[in-house]
């Protein structure tokens, strides 16, 4: 090869590398933009921007949509006039009884279980609806925002503190952090560890739900960006993305169940036996 051809080949290769680098940066910005917290465009319509709607963040709109959906389904579709539930009533009772019998009843005594079951039903249905709405085409997941999951975990934390104070009094709540039957030098280490573990349990609830949902969405976006990078050669990626989509649906239900179950365990631990 002579010098001109070599120079042309090298220039073409450098341009191709540069083009791929620019495309990678472009995709990275767009992947993060779509799953970012303060993403201003609420409806991810392909070519349409409605600037008037940018006042609302995507998670606020999704919370309102989930609220309207849940209240509408439970108020309008649940019929109490039959003895044996039928249709929508049957389906809703299936989930509510699942939460009450498998999550609340094993950890709380009878009177307390009857009083606190609506809290866990609310947790379960809200998180399930928010996660599943995040998988629908024009919507985004409100639980992929740390503020939303942090608020839910703070509600659990408030119930942990409030439940302990209600059941044992303020002094009993402080005694929760002092495990019995330990010598005094060990207490100086154990009590800060107990306090830290209280906060880390609440924090872990928030982070677990947030990171699971966020990681799923980022994975789907990142795999689909391979189609932008490689064109038609990346067509089999679409099948893999469909598989991951099914896994995301399973993850949505599992994370709702895990959040509710761990909330029940933590609240009953603080209120009853004092950890």
């Amino acid at each position, binding site marked *: 090869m002579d010098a001109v051809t070599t120079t042309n080949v090298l220039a073409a290769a450098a341009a191709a590398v540069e083009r791929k680098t620019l495309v990678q940066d472009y995709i990275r910005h767009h992947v993060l933009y779509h799953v970012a917290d303060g993403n201003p465009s609420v409806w991810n319509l392909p070519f349409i921007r409605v600037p008037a709607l940018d006042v609302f963040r995507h998670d606020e709109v999704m919370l309102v949509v989930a609220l309207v959906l849940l209240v509408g389904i439970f108020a309008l579709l649940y019929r109490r006039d039959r003895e044996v539930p039928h249709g929508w009533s049957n389906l809703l009772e299936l989930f509510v009884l699942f939460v009450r019998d498998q999550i609340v009843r094993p950890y709380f005594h009878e009177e307390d279980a009857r009083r606190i079951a609506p809290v866990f039903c609310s947790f379960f249905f809200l998180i399930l609806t928010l996660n599943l709405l995040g998988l629908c085409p024009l919507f985004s997941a409100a639980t992929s925002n740390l503020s939303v999951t942090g608020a839910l975990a703070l509600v659990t934390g408030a119930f942990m503190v409030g439940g302990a104070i209600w059941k044992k009094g303020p002094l009993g709540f402080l005694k929760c952090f002092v495990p019995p039957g330990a010598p005094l030098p060990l207490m100086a280490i154990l009590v800060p560890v107990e306090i830290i573990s209280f906060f880390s349990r609440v924090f872990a609830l928030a982070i*677990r739900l947030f990171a699971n949902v966020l990681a799923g969405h980022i994975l789907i976006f990142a795999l689909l960006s391979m189609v932008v990078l490689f064109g038609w050669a990346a067509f089999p990626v679409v099948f893999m993305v469909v598989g991951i989509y099914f896994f995301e649906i399973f993850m949505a239900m*599992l994370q709702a169940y895990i959040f509710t179950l761990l909330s029940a365990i933590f609240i009953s631990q603080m209120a009853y036996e004092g950890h």
Partner: protein
Amino acid sequence: MTSLAIASVGAGLVAIGAGIGIGQVWASGLQSMSRQPEMSSKIQTSMFIGAALVEGIALFALVICFLQMS
């Protein structure tokens, strides 16, 4: 650019930790389910809970890797 590279390596190490942890949970669960098939549903429930807890810890580290991407 190099912080993104190191964060990617970190994300791979997180995957190793999560894989080992969840693999041990399910391995012991499968062994106990084969010893006592009548306890299968309880053991399966506990397996899912254990896997979610291990995955929660792995996702702490993954969030830190995400923070390096921005």
